[in-house]
C-alpha cells in the first residue's frame, strides 16, 4: 500500500454547515501541504484523520485503519492542533510528559522522550518554565513537541508555523525536513502558499469543504498561467513607467492610480518580473515598492472556483 490516507466521498457537516463535502483524495508518504483559506475544511479534515470526528458520510482509511475513536491508531499518529491547548501552570516539559504518560509510556520513558522532544523543537532552555510565560511561538513549539514525542509515523499538523518568528520558522521547517528524511510522513496545513511551498511540492487544495486541486505546486501554478494577475507599483516617476509598461505585449492594462502609484494587469507575471529590472535600470523611475495584490493563495482559489 502506498497511500497513507485514502478518503472516498468523505463528507462532514455540522447541522446545516458543511465542513467537508464529497472529498475523495489520497495522500502519499512524505510531506503534503494541506492548503486552503480559513473555513476551507482543513481542520475538520485533520480531526477526521486523527479520529476525533466521525465523518457524516463516506469512508476514510488512515494507515489502513478506520480512524474514528480507534485508539489503536494513536501510536502511529501525532497531532498538533492550532488551538492553544496548553495548561498555564504546567511546564512545557511537564505537559509533554503528561500527555506521553496518558499515551501509555512508563514514567522514565515519558521523561526521556519529553526531554528529547523539547530539545528537538529548540525549547530545551525554557522547558522547565510554566507555559504561562511562553510566547506564542514557544507554545506552538510545545504543541509540536507533544506531537512528535512518541515518534509517530504520521504527523498531522494544523497551522504549525503560525505565530513563529522567522528564525523559529526556519528551525521548525528544518525539523520537518529532518523528520521526512527519517521516514516520517507529515500533513501540514496552512493558508500561506509559500510557507508550504518551501517544504514540499505535493499539495492538496481545499475550498469550502471541497477538493479544489491536488498535485505539485508547478501543476497547480500552470493552471493559473492564463489567469491575468495584477501588480501594484509605487514609483516617483509612475507616469513614465506606465508608458513603458503599456508597450509590452503581455500587459493588458495599466491603471494610474495617482502620480506615484500604478496597477499593472498582465497575463504573464513571470515575464513582467523578468522585464521590470531592465526598465527600472533604463528609466530610473525611482521604484519604491512592488506588490502582487493577487499572488496569495486566496486569489488562486478565487481563480480556481470561477
Amino acid at each position, binding site marked *: *500500500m*502506498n497511500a*497513507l490516507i485514502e478518503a472516498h466521498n468523505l463528507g462532514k457537516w455540522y447541522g446545516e454547515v458543511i465542513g467537508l463535502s464529497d472529498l475523495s483524495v489520497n495522500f*502519499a*508518504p*512524505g*510531506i503534503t501541504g494541506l492548503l486552503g483559506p480559513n473555513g476551507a475544511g482543513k*481542520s475538520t479534515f485533520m*480531526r477526521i484523520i*486523527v*479520529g*476525533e*470526528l*466521525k465523518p457524516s458520510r463516506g469512508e476514510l482509511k488512515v*494507515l489502513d485503519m478506520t480512524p474514528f*475513536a480507534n*485508539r*489503536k491508531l*494513536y*501510536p*502511529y*499518529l501525532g*497531532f498538533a*492542533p492550532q*488551538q*492553544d*491547548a*496548553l*495548561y498555564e*501552570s*504546567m511546564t512545557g516539559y511537564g505537559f509533554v510528559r*503528561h*500527555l506521553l*504518560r*496518558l*499515551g*501509555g*509510556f*512508563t514514567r522514565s520513558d515519558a521523561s526521556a522522550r519529553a526531554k528529547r522532544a523539547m530539545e528537538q523543537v529548540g525549547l530545551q532552555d525554557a522547558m522547565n518554565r*510554566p507555559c504561562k510565560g511562553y510566547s506564542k511561538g514557544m507554545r506552538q513549539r510545545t504543541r509540536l513537541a*507533544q506531537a512528535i514525542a*512518541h*515518534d*509517530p*509515523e*504520521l504527523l498531522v499538523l494544523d497551522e504549525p508555523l503560525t505565530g513563529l518568528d522567522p528564525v523559529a520558522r526556519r528551525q521548525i521547517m528544518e525539523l*520537518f*525536513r529532518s523528520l*521526512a*528524511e527519517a*521516514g516520517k*510522513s507529515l500533513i501540514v496545513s496552512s493558508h500561506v502558499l509559500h510557507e508550504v*511551498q*518551501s*517544504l*514540499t*511540492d*505535493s499539495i492538496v487544495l481545499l475550498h469550502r469543504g471541497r477538493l479544489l486541486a491536488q498535485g505539485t505546486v508547478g501543476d497547480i501554478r500552470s493552471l493559473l498561467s492564463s489567469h491575468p494577475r495584477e501588480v501594484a507599483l509605487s514609483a516617483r516617476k509612475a507616469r513614465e513607467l506606465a508608458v513603458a509598461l503599456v508597450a509590452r505585449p503581455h500587459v493588458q492594462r495599466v491603471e494610474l492610480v495617482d502620480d506615484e502609484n500604478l496597477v499593472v494587469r498582465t497575463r504573464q507575471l513571470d515575464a513582467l518580473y523578468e522585464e521590470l529590472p531592465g526598465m527600472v535600470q533604463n528609466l530610473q523611475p525611482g521604484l519604491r515598492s512592488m506588490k502582487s495584490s493577487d499572488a496569495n493563495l486566496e486569489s488562486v482559489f478565487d481563480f480556481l472556483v470561477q
Partner: protein
Amino acid sequence: MKATTHTEIYRRYGGELRSRPAVERILGWAGLRMAFRRKLPALILFTPSAITALVGCVMVHLRFMLAERTAEAEGRAATLAARGIQELLGDTAENIHRFIQTEQFFALLTLAWYGSHLIAEDRRLSANLLYFARPITPLRYILGKWLTALALGGLTLMVPALMICWQAAFSSPDWIFLKESSWVIWRTIGFCALWIVVMSSLVLAISSAFQRKGLALMCTFALVFLVQGISLVIVQVTGNPNYGLLSLIENFQAISEWLFHKPNIGTSILRQAQGLGHQPAWNIEGSFWTLGLITFLSWVVLWRNVKRMEVIA
C-alpha cells in the same frame, strides 16, 4: 532549495506502550498537582479547614482529659467544674457532627474553586483535542477528572473528620471511644463519602457545561445557595416543609442528623421558620432519593458534555 520528500512505504511503530495505561490515575494526579501549584488559593482554602480540624481535635482531647480528671477529682467543686466544662464541650459524636457541619462549607468552597476549572479549562484551551487524540475514552477522562474532585473533597472533609476520630480514639481512656462509639467513625466515613460523591459530581457537571471557570464557579454557588433560598421561600409560601427537599444543604443536614441522632448546632433557618425544631421535616429516604437523583443527573450532563467535547473543538 526545496526539500525532497521520501517515497518509501511507512513503517509500523516499533516502540512499546502499555496496553491499558492508568489514564484515570495520571489525569487525577495531574489535576491535583495543578491545583496545588498556585500557593495562595491553596493557603486560603485549606487553612480554615485545617484550623477547624485542629480545634475539633483539641476539643475532643479536652473532653476526654476532663472526663478522666472528673473521675479522679475528690472535691465536689472541682467535680462540678469539670462536668460543667464537659457539658459545654459536648460529647465526641456531637463534636464530630458539629465539625462536619462547619467543614462542609469549607469543603464546598475548595471543591467549587478547584473543581469548576477541571473541565471548563480543558474546554477553553481545547486541551480535549490532545486528550482525545490519545487512547483515552470519554469515560476514562471523566473518571480521571472525578478522581481529582474526589481527592479535593477528601482532603477538606474526610481527612479532617477522620483526624478527629483518630484523636478521640487515642485520647479516650482504655480505647473507650473505639469500644463504645465506633459507629461514629463509620457514619462519619459514610456521610463524608456521600457528600463528596454528590458534590464532586455536581461540580464536575457544571464545569463541563462552561468554558469559563468563573461562570462555572458562580453557577455552583447559585445552585447550592440560591436553591436553598428558593426552597425556603416556597416552604414559607406554601407551608409545605417537603419543598425543603429541593435544597442540597437541607438534604445533607437531614441525613447528618439522621446518622448522628443529633440536632444541628446551627439549626436550619428553614426548620426554625417552620417551628419544626430539630425534628426531620420529611422521610429521610426522600433525601437519599433526591441526592441520588442529583448525582444521576450530574453524570448524565457530564457524559453528554464530554461526549460533545470529543467531537467539538
